[in-house]
């Protein structure tokens, strides 16, 4: 009977990519991993060609429900460059504030999912509870919890009213406190350390070779961040640190994300305190001059890339999206090798991928020849938790 798999996790790359890992094992150890990408997509890039630029903002926002602001910002930035629009300072500040709050909510969500994968459901519940704080803030600023609809070509659609500032600062204070708590927890809590330390090793040169992006690359000690390298929106005026870790394992990816949340809180505070006055958007025409542009944006998961080609009409001629998860798949395949079957869920979850895409894993036993078993993510998760309970932590790999 075919196994039905239910998506547990939330993140979704730009196009829905059902991914199939073929994992070859020798007993418990993974010898080789291979993946198949097949597209069960909706055809967003094609549909975008028949919608106007303004309509497309709402379409690309719905590529991903978690980093929706990523996609709209990346898209409007490109279109603004084509049209030669100078976005007012205040508009850029509000845009950046929403981006940083989105990063906090996305990283908290990931922490919860990672906790779930190692069987630490208390952490799952805790982080999702605190994630609501970030969602409340987003709802206060944009009016929506998930698809914010705040970006428009030339600026943003909603202003931050004077009375909201204190409330936002109060909320950020609460968030800072919780984020600090998780940062301390990640480095001391033995439940996390047991499963994350030394697992999914991805050395610096390999991460470079596979062109890893975002926290996955930064945890392998590669200082890459579009916010620093090619500052967009208001990042040039912000004081923040680029977080890296040299541990190159899952613990490193966890710590990088935790500290990034601390930095994001810091940035949100700076943005609110130094919010310039003035208009929030510049006037725009509906026609976009012919040309092509590439826009970069540091999404919570890494660099997101948009390519927009205009032929001088109301509609784009071509829109190409390369989301961050897509760039991280080769690194996952590498970091799976040499570890136990019980580590598969966490190693795959560590890049913050689309769980619905990675629900199917096929196990190939090299000892018994060609026996193939198809396991779903839920089964693997339970298996991993049980396996570690029985074997303790004495076992280390590679």
């Amino acid at each position, binding site marked *: 009977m*075919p196994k*039905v798999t*239910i*998506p547990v996790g*939330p*993140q*979704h790359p730009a196009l*829905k990519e*059902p991914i199939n890992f073929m994992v070859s094992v020798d007993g418990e150890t993974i010898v080789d991993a291979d993946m198949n990408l097949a597209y*069960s*997509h*909706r*055809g*967003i890039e*094609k*549909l975008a060609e*028949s919608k106007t630029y303004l309509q497309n903002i*709402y*379409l690309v926002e*719905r*590529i*991903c*429900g*978690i980093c*929706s602001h990523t996609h709209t910002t990346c898209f409007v930035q490109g279109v603004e460059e084509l049209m030669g629009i100078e976005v007012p300072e205040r508009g850029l500040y509000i845009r950046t504030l929403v981006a940083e709050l989105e990063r906090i909510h996305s990283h908290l*969500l990931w922490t919860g999912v990672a906790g779930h994968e190692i069987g630490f459901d208390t952490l799952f*519940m805790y982080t*999702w*509870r605190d994630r*609501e704080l970030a*969602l409340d803030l987003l709802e206060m600023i944009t009016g929506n*919890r*998930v*698809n914010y609809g705040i970006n428009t070509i030339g600026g943003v659609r909603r202003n931050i009213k004077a009375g909201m500032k204190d409330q936002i600062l109060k909320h950020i204070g609460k968030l800072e406190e919780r984020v600090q708590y998780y940062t301390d927890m990640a480095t001391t809590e033995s439940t996390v350390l047991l499963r994350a330390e030394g697992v999914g090793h991805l050395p610096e040169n390999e991460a470079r070779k596979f062109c890893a992006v975002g926290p996955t690359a930064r945890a392998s000690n590669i200082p890459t961040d579009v916010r620093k390298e090619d500052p967009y929106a208001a990042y040039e005026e912000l004081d923040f640190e680029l977080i890296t870790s040299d541990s190159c394992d899952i613990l490193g990816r966890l710590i990088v994300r935790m500290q990034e949340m601390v930095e994001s809180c810091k940035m949100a505070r700076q943005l609110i305190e130094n919010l310039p006055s003035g208009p929030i958007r510049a006037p725009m025409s509906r026609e976009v001059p012919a040309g092509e542009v590439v826009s970069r944006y540091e999404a919570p998961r890494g660099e997101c890339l948009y390519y927009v080609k205009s032929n001088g009409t109301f509609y784009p001629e071509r829109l190409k999206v390369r989301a961050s998860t897509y760039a991280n798949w080769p690194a996952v395949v590498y970091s799976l090798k040499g570890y136990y079957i019980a580590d598969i869920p966490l190693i795959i979850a560590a890049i913050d991928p*689309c769980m*619905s895409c990675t629900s199917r894993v096929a196990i190939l036993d090299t000892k018994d020849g060609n026996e193939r078993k198809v396991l779903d993510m*839920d089964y693997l998760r339970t298996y991993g938790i049980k396996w570690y309970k029985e074997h303790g932590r004495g076992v280390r790999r590679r």
Partner: protein
Amino acid sequence: MDLVKWARIKSPWVLHLNTGGCNGCDIEVLAALMPRSDVERFGILLQGSPRHADLIVCQGPITKQMRDRVVRIYEQVPEPKFVMAIGSCACTAGVFQGCYNVLGGIDKAIPVDVYVPGCPPNPAAIVDGVMKLLTKLKES
């Protein structure tokens, strides 16, 4: 009211199914299960297997590739079964209308009992949708 019906109304088990959506509704459904809304106190429990579920909660439009799988999952759920379409995409395909790989709303593949529009609907709206279904059940 017979015992089985009473039990079903008191504790509907839910299957969470993404049929090709953007995950916005998925996280809102999950958020409804998390400490703030905590629908588990009403006996609503997330299930991994369709064979244990009473209620399928669908998100996203039906893509060509998902259609057969959705029908198969629907057939695996024991009778009587109910379907909720969460979000505008699940109701009418929403913003993805016109995509070459999208067939339309969930009702293009399986019968739907409750529609919850919104992009995405608030967790409170999702809980309200479940409650409406349960009230309908009670009266039937």
